[in-house]
């Protein structure tokens, strides 16, 4: 057991290392992340000024802009990664090793989350420093907890998706590309999710950013009233979702790996 745990942690650490330190060698991403954050923020602020929704709305979208890069990272950095690893010829080496696939994906998630943090912090910085958006810091530790639980749940979902990419190729990639923006919209990145109506919110709540964002808005924006549920309930649901996703992911990765070994899909490139 101890040996297995150590193997998991060492794999996680090594895979996260590639994401964090490997990427640092290409300095352009820092500039791009900061600029990307600035443009995201500018778009939101001027869009809401045009809409005439009042300044309190800008706080909500800053938080949306803060969470969106993580959502993108889950979809493009985690879910599709096994597809890219296969295309690069790494997947077979990963599979031949004793390390579980989940360890690679968790490592990728940790590395990806840290990598994404810069862009998210840039959004927050421009929102607060340039556009004078105000947040309350009264519940900062709780907000941090909600944020971390949301990440846990969201990356759990990403690992579930990644099992699909283990078997499928461009078809899964195209599907992810297709659903990315509509899903981002429905999870309330640009406006309070409550406006979608309870039916749609119920479906959108399967994406952890929906409730995570709603809870963060309740904790950090005092004037926010159009909540979906009380943040405490949302936190509990997010924990539940995270646990369920982790279980599904662990089962799905094994099942899909077996299926891919059977159908000769593990090393099939340019699929």
């Amino acid at each position: 057991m101890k040996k297995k745990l150590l193997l998991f942690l060492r794999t996680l650490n090594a895979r996260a290392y590639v994401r964090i330190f490997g990427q640092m060698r290409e300095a352009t991403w820092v500039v791009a992340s900061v600029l990307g954050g600035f443009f995201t923020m500018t778009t939101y602020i001027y869009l809401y000024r045009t809409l005439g929704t009042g300044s309190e709305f800008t706080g909500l979208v800053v938080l949306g802009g803060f969470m969106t890069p993580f959502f993108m990272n889950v979809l493009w950095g985690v879910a599709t990664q096994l597809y890219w690893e296969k295309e690069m010829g790494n997947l077979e080496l990963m599979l031949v090793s004793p390390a579980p696939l989940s360890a690679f994906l968790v490592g990728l998630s940790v590395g990806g989350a840290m990598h994404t943090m810069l862009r998210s912090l840039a959004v927050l910085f421009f929102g607060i420093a340039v556009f004078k958006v105000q947040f309350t810091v009264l519940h900062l530790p709780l907000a941090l907890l909600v944020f971390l639980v949301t990440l846990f749940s969201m990356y759990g979902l990403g690992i579930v998706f990644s099992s699909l990419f283990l078997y499928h190729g461009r078809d899964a990639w195209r599907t992810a590309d297709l659903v990315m923006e509509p899903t981002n919209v429905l999870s309330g990145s640009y406006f309070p999710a409550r406006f979608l109506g309870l039916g749609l919110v119920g479906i959108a709540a399967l994406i952890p950013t929906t409730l995570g964002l709603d809870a963060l808005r309740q904790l950090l924006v005092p004037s926010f009233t159009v909540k979906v549920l009380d943040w405490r309930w949302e936190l509990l649901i997010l924990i539940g979702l995270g646990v369920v996703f982790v279980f599904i992911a662990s089962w799905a990765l094994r099942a899909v790996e077996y299926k891919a070994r059977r159908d000769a899909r593990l090393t099939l490139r340019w699929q």
Partner: protein
Amino acid sequence: MHTAIQVENLSRVFNRRGTAPFHALRGVSFDVSYGEIFGLLGPNGAGKTTTIKIMSTLLLPTSGRVTVAGFDVEKDYTHVRPLISLISGGETSGYGILTVEEQLWMFSQFYGMETHVARARIEEYLKVVGMWDSRRQQMNRLSTGMRQKVNLVRGLVTDPKVLFLDEPTLGVDVEASVIIRNIVRDWVREKPERSVILTTHYMAEADELCSRVAIINHGLILANAAPSQLKQDLDSRAHYEITVDRLDGDQLDHITASMGEGNDLVLGSDKVTQSPMLVAHLMHESDIARLITALAGQGATLEYMRKLEPTLEDAFLKMVGKRFEDEEEASPVS
């Protein structure tokens, strides 16, 4: 247990949409002992890589059974994986943004190695392959040969029991190929519980390295023996090439008659000197003395003589029915 790998009646069928099922393997059986370098030879599409993929847990067989170190690759694959390593020729795996040292460390972590142990082995093997000075270079700046040396080190650092080498010297220059072959040979000799499965297109490589080779074609094992045995089985006669200063057809007939039945002599000419050249296929090695005496009897002076040894390629030619390169050109890619 002396068997590192046991392959029993292995079959694999690929079902492809719109085409007839492709039988990549049709009842392949062989075993590999510890301490052995075992070669799988065959043209493209013969089933070599499919066999390697099944043995290395990347692909399931349609039927049959494979065990590695006593573990079934289908059911006990989690026990198999810590014991094996896979190196493919021409692979561009890994991450170009990492340095050589980082890349090797990363893969060692996937095997749960302690960092200090991994670093010591990385240093040891990088020095062996002559790449210690390049340890801080990024992977994407390495030449093909250097990259393949790093791949070899990656496979060895984790100290596997079974090493799968799939065309390890593909696209690599002569010097790097020699280094790779020497390292593989020394690595197996170092510990008796290690073994290597090698697929290669280079007959000389298999001849030099392997204690046994299996010739595979169209998913069937055509022969499985030591290279020397395969060559010996090819033809029990002794073959010589003899260049003399003069010899005509009548003289040859005379000599042939004197040599007796079963000894064939073919007269040609040396491509460079244009001198008469005799190719002799003799029943017994000792018959060469009689032949030289007979030549002298006809007044021919010996200019040059060499014994023709059958090669593994000749054995392949006999088994598969075509020259290896011809097969290469004619076969579809698997």
